[in-house]
């Protein structure tokens, strides 16, 4: 079968290529592909962090971090995202044991924490904009809203994805395809928490030190 054409019949025929296609099971490269997507996403955030690093001190005589940031609120927000990370981990552990109900329950808890994070962030943005600290006010605020807003947008899409997967798991159970999707979202969700470490350190905490 795996015989190269035009080889002498004597002895063992050298095999130059495989005629039979070797199996590529569905989804066998999904995790690596998704990881590479996350790395490209990481580059987006790196550029936004660099922009914030350059423009973070350009207040244009407007309000600075000390006038705007409430560290207690940021600490609460950080804990919401961290809680959602660990509850997603619990969902993955339940998924491994094929417990559909428990998995769904932890996914709901994760969604609630994610929603709490988004609500607090939107409250903070609303508060800032109501005070006149809009993205148009200064380069610092443009960079701030772009960086933190992009992260918030990622969390929003993660939440939409999470709800979609809960519907999928509800309809078809923990089939292999759904497990693969949940694993991808797991990486996405934990990655967003990693980016948030950078945000609260470089934007909020370092901002208060400027």
């Amino acid at each position, binding site marked *: 079968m795996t015989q190269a054409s035009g080889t002498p019949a004597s002895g063992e025929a050298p095999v130059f290529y495989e005629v039979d296609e070797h*199996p590529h*099971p569905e989804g*066998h*490269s999904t*995790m*690596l592909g998704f*990881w*590479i997507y996350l*790395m490209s996403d*990481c*580059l987006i955030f*790196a*550029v936004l*962090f*660099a*922009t914030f*690093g*350059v423009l973070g001190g*350009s*207040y*244009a*005589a407007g309000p600075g971090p000390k006038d705007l940031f409430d*560290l207690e609120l*940021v*600490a609460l927000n*950080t*804990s919401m995202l*961290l809680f959602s*990370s*660990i509850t997603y*981990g*619990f969902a*993955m*552990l339940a*998924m*491994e044991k094929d417990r559909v109900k428990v998995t769904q329950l932890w996914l709901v808890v994760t969604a609630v924490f994610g929603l709490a994070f988004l609500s607090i962030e939107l409250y903070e943005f609303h508060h800032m904009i109501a005070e006149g600290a809009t993205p148009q006010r200064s380069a610092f605020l443009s960079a701030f809203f772009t960086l933190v807003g992009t992260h918030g947008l990622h969390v929003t899409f993660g939440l939409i994805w999470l709800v979609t997967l809960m519907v999928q798991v509800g309809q078809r159970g923990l089939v*292999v395809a759904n*497990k693969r999707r949940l*694993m991808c979202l*797991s*990486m996405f969700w*934990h*990655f967003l*928490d*990693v980016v948030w*470490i*950078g945000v*609260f*350190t*470089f934007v909020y*905490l*370092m901002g*208060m*030190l400027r």
Partner: protein
Amino acid sequence: MSAHTTPAADHGHDHAHAHGHDDHAEPHGSLRGYMIGFVLSVILTAIPFWLVMSGVLGSTTATALAIMGFAVVQIVVHMIYFLHMNFRTEGGWSMLALGFTLILVVITLAGSLWVMYHLNTNMMPSVHDMRQMP
């Protein structure tokens, strides 16, 4: 046999799935791993917030360096305990992609800050400080 079975092995009735792709089915960690990661993250988050809010270190530079150090450690903790990164997943390709990305991130961040800092200090006369403008 180990008690931990991967999902690929669970549903690996076809030998094609198990063949040559054992390294792809990565473990999702254990309850213990997640709890260690969580507790470490809480500690590594609480300390920098406390340092900045109380200002115990006195010097701004020392506080900045300390919180950056805590951030780096916490990112590594997340990578290990939540993202389950190691040199074996995907035959090392995940780690290679991460390494390449980190190089690009360092070049982007360090390059931007370095170049723009010098542009600001060398090309902008200090008399035109925006704070003194009407």
